[in-house]
């Protein structure tokens, strides 16, 4: 199976006039996504996951590293070539209201990818648009309305329709259900999964909510302050979390069934300001098992199980014994 997406040592720095050091939003991340698989990326706000999502599609420029989409080096593409490539890799944004132009009708919004990339006759275009709008669960009459006439969940369906109408190979969803009511969340998630299966999509699902990611992802990466601290197949991650941060996140998931409840790990402090990242392991000030080494040397992602990588000195040492 080939990889739809390959990131090698990708790094993104932001320079602001107020801080002397640049803010490292994404710190040397490498990962691969196989075709047809779903990768979940989990982290708090400030972890860099949204930045990573945008880097994957080269919506923002990396400071360093390589990004390969379907074996094509995205960074070597010129503007026009990159734009053409975009029909195959799409993004679903978090806030469905602001990602839809309030002055355009639904029909115009959804047709836009077709207008840009394909030269269809009006009848063919209409057909495609009508087909996709019903596929995402809305009525054809919705096409002539405007975004403000819909609820959050419906708008997200419209965004999804726009993203998949050109049959992309890769879809990156940046917190697609976080802005929605909990009751609607599962509907949209189901829609995403159905579409993924129908269209054979490779998927990147970014979220701060572990319980959401659990159902939809094949593999899950946990991010903290710009680094991946743990990455593993989904069920392995949940059954056997190795990094203390992952453990804390999982312990915080509310469980209805008493047997499944784990005692909560409460982390000290808050996530630090990315402009002022801690030395050594980013997590060490909040880590319950930190040792001296953790404050001076940055740990690397090492294999700690089958397809399971963790970035923690203690875990790595335990495994190598």
């Amino acid at each position, binding site marked *: 199976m080939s990889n739809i997406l390959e990131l090698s040592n990708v790094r993104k720095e932001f320079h602001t006039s107020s801080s002397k050091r640049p803010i490292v939003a994404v710190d040397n991340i490498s990962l691969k996504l196989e075709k047809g698989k779903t990768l979940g990326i989990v982290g708090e706000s400030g972890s860099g996951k949204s930045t990573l999502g945008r880097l994957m*599609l080269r*919506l923002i420029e990396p400071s360093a590293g390589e990004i390969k989409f379907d074996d094509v080096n995205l960074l070597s593409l010129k503007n026009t070539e990159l*734009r*053409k*490539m*975009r*029909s195959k890799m*799409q*993004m679903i*944004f978090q*806030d469905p209201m*602001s*990602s*839809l*132009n*309030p*002055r355009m009708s639904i029909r115009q919004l959804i047709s*836009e*990818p077709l207008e*840009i*990339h394909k030269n269809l006759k009006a009848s063919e275009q209409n057909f495609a648009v009508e087909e996709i709008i019903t596929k995402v669960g809305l009525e054809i009459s919705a096409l002539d309305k405007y975004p403000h006439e819909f609820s959050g969940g419906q708008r997200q369906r419209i*965004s999804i329709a*726009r993203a998949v109408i050109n049959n992309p190979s890769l879809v990156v969803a940046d917190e697609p259900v976080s802005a929605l009511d909990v009751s609607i969340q599962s509907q949209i998630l189901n829609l995403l999964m159905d579409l993924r299966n129908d269209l054979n999509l490779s998927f990147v699902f970014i979220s701060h909510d572990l319980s959401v990611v659990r159902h939809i992802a094949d593999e899950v990466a946990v991010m903290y302050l710009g680094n991946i601290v743990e990455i593993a197949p989904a069920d392995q991650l949940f059954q056997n979390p190795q990094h203390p941060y992952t453990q804390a996140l999982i312990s915080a998931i509310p469980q209805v069934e008493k047997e499944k409840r784990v005692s909560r790990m409460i982390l000290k402090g808050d996530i630090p300001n990315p402009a002022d990242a801690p030395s050594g392991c980013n997590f060490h000030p909040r880590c319950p098992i930190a040792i001296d080494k953790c404050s001076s040397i940055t740990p690397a992602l090492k294999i700690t199980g089958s397809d399971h990588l963790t970035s923690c000195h203690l875990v790595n040492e335990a495994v190598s014994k």
Partner: protein
Amino acid sequence: MKTFKQIMRRKVAAVCLVVIFLIFTAAIFAPWLAPYSPNEQFKDGLTLQGAPIAPNSEYLLGTDLLGRDLLSRLIYGARTSLVVGILANGVALLLGTTIGLVAGYLRGRLGSLIMRVTDLMMAFPALLLAITLAAIFSPSLLIVALVIAMVNWVQVARVIYTQTIAISEREFVEASRSIGASNRRILVKHILPHLMPTILVWGTLGIATTVLLEATLSFLGIGVRPPTPSWGNIIFENQTYFITAPWLVFIPGLAIITLALCFNLLGDTLRDELDPTQRGRQ
């Protein structure tokens, strides 16, 4: 929720619209409306001593220093003032919008540079320069209009610049980029429509400014030159008779005030209607 104030404003704005419409009509149909030719000097248009005649049954608004009918000159003057005002404003809008749009969207070095240039122009005693240029170049309607446009485009550019930046940051622009839309497409189909209210408001308010500027320049004698009548140069020509024949100054003056007030009111009301967050200064 409409307050009394809002309803009144709408009514006032409607009145202004009617007035403006009337003036426009007068300007367009000048040849049919004006009782006489604006340039014809009548023998009985002056007193025996050669002074202008007060309003009477024959010359409804009196005559000017050369015995020409003031009413006719006023009607034709509407034409001149409006043509110059609209032309100048159109150029200023076009120039200002393009520059503001490009600078606001592209940002980076080019954007900053452009904005520094507008800073520079704002520090300019531009009217002074306009006066200099208008005085020295050969007088034609076009030159006057262009000079006025040069003075006015800067304000438009700044407002459009700030707004373009704000709009470009919105997520639907990023979404369009992620679909693969070209810059041109984004500017024309996404950003420009959001700027329309602003452009409309400035289009209206701008005409007030340009009409006033034309009147000012003509009043100084360096705008539209006689014998072509413009409300400003009627005042200019008849300055010496100010004391003995004040209507020659007051009537065109009132006309200018009315036009300026109406466009200002209309523009202000439009602004409040279309974007309640913008208040106060022009």
